[in-house]
């Protein structure tokens, strides 16, 4: 069954701010910078933002409610969306409904996190009860340990090689070299990728994201409102999410995208081949491969052919993670779950500056978040259409 359509809803003001390796600033400071960048871009007064959707790992001990004080807002609609790498897709889905229903007029969707030294290690070591009981005691390598197993199982099942993963990573690094806020802008070769030291075999250093601080966000409002502000905007064609898909299925070779794909495309009235630009959650490459398969760009287990045959650079014939993704920009906590969708919004509204995908109109962004035990539980995807 299809859910109600997303007609009349627009996204504007893609923002990526504050990207830095370490910061002792709390998450609130990054929320503030992002909100400021978005209202300036949209030409809105801050008080016109009457909805806030917040995704963060490092806001504690402050609850999300505290953001209304620290950001000086009195919102009619306030929501925590704690889904890590799936945050933006899920924030969009909820914000779009709030705007459609009139519960909010302008919703700021923001993922933001600080990164003090040692912050990532503390977060990863006690991410969930299951991680404390059944993951961290086994080598204490954070999410890299479960993802190393997922990657090995994917390799064994599909025949993908490290060089296949490297093709994606090298293309993303090229894309990052054209993105001002990316922290890793030095292009790399496939040989350099293959020579990187092992961290959690088969994962090596250049398969893994660099934790950092930063924020990403966008505004959700009515389409007629976006038009009246004379802003470049994207329409929401469809958004899907699925949690705990295929529970207990091992090896882990797919996520909820496969269950939701039909809904995603039929609601949008589009096919995978109509998509001009793609963003997939990229911590780590095997997960990115599963997303490309899951939303229909190739058959299950066949992404290795896709990355061999297509050019994934922003100037190529199948642009993927055109800002460099987290592998190029760094992983700013929950902002890592926003970075892809925000970049797709930029691309389909022709605002991607030196890395613009030519004539990009239809974009797909997927999400993957919350490795509570042996895989991420949250999956989602959105299709956005730029109106220009």
């Amino acid at each position: 069954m299809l859910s109600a359509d997303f007609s009349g809803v627009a996204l504007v003001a893609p923002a990526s701010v504050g990207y830095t390796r370490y910061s002792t600033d709390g998450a609130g400071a990054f929320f503030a910078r992002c909100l400021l960048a978005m209202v300036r871009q949209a030409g809105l007064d801050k008080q016109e933002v009457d909805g806030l959707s917040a995704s963060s790992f490092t806001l504690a001990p402050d609850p999300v409610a505290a953001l209304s004080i620290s950001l000086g807002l009195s919102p009619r609609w306030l929501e925590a969306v704690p889904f890590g790498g799936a945050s933006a897709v899920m924030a969009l889905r909820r914000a779009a409904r709030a705007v459609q229903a009139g519960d909010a007029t302008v919703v700021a969707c923001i993922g933001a996190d600080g990164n003090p030294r040692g912050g990532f290690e503390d977060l990863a070591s006690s991410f969930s009860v299951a991680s404390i009981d059944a993951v961290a005691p086994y080598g204490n390598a954070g999410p890299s340990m479960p993802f190393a197993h997922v990657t090995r199982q994917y390799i064994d099942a599909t025949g993908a090689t490290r060089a296949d993963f490297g093709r994606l990573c090298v293309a993303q690094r090229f894309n990052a070299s054209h993105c001002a806020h990316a922290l890793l802008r030095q292009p790399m070769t496939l040989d350099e990728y293959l020579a990187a030291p092992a961290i959690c075999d088969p994962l090596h250093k250049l398969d893994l994201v660099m934790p950092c601080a930063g924020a990403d966000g966008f505004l959700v409002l009515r389409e007629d409102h976006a038009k009246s502000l004379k802003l470049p905007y994207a329409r929401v064609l469809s958004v899907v999410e699925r949690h705990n898909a295929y529970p207990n299925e091992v090896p882990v070779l797919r996520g909820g995208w496969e269950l939701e794909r039909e809904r995603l495309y039929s609601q949008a009235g589009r096919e995978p081949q109509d998509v001009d630009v793609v963003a997939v959650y990229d911590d780590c490459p095997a997960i990115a491969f599963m997303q490309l398969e899951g939303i229909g760009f190739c058959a299950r287990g066949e992404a290795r052919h896709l990355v061999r045959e297509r050019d994934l650079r922003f100037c190529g014939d199948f642009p993927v993670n055109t800002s460099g993704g987290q592998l190029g920009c760094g992983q700013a906590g929950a902002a890592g779950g926003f970075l892809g969708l925000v970049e797709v919004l930029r691309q389909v509204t022709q605002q991607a500056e030196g890395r613009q995908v030519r004539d990009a109109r239809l974009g797909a962004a997927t999400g993957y978040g919350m490795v509570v035990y042996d895989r991420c539980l949250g999956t989602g995807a959105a299709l956005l259409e730029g109106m220009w």
Partner: protein
Amino acid sequence: MVTRYSESMRDLMEASQATGFAMFHCCSCGHRFYPPQSFCPACLAPDVEARSSNGDATVLSTTLIHRSLDRSVPGHRPTYVACVETAEGPSIFAMADLAFAVGSRVRIRLRDGLFHASERTL
């Protein structure tokens, strides 16, 4: 690192003392699950118990961890961690003696508060 195991995890380890391994079972519907928790994820009944078993398992994958997040342990040595499918069904992570090939039949034993995978001697 300091482990702060949950009460259910401590129950599972206690039940593992007898034979070396245990798995949570639901007394209402028979579902077997891991990680441990105090109610059944299938039927939500609260009557669950950790039952000891012989720890037979099959290796799904092995990783070699070269770098730990725990900076309080100087000179972290590379550590093998296996992902195994237990005879009871659920998959678990366990320390491993070596890089077991996929499909290897192993035995899981609790040792020094951690599950370990060793070659199964027939």
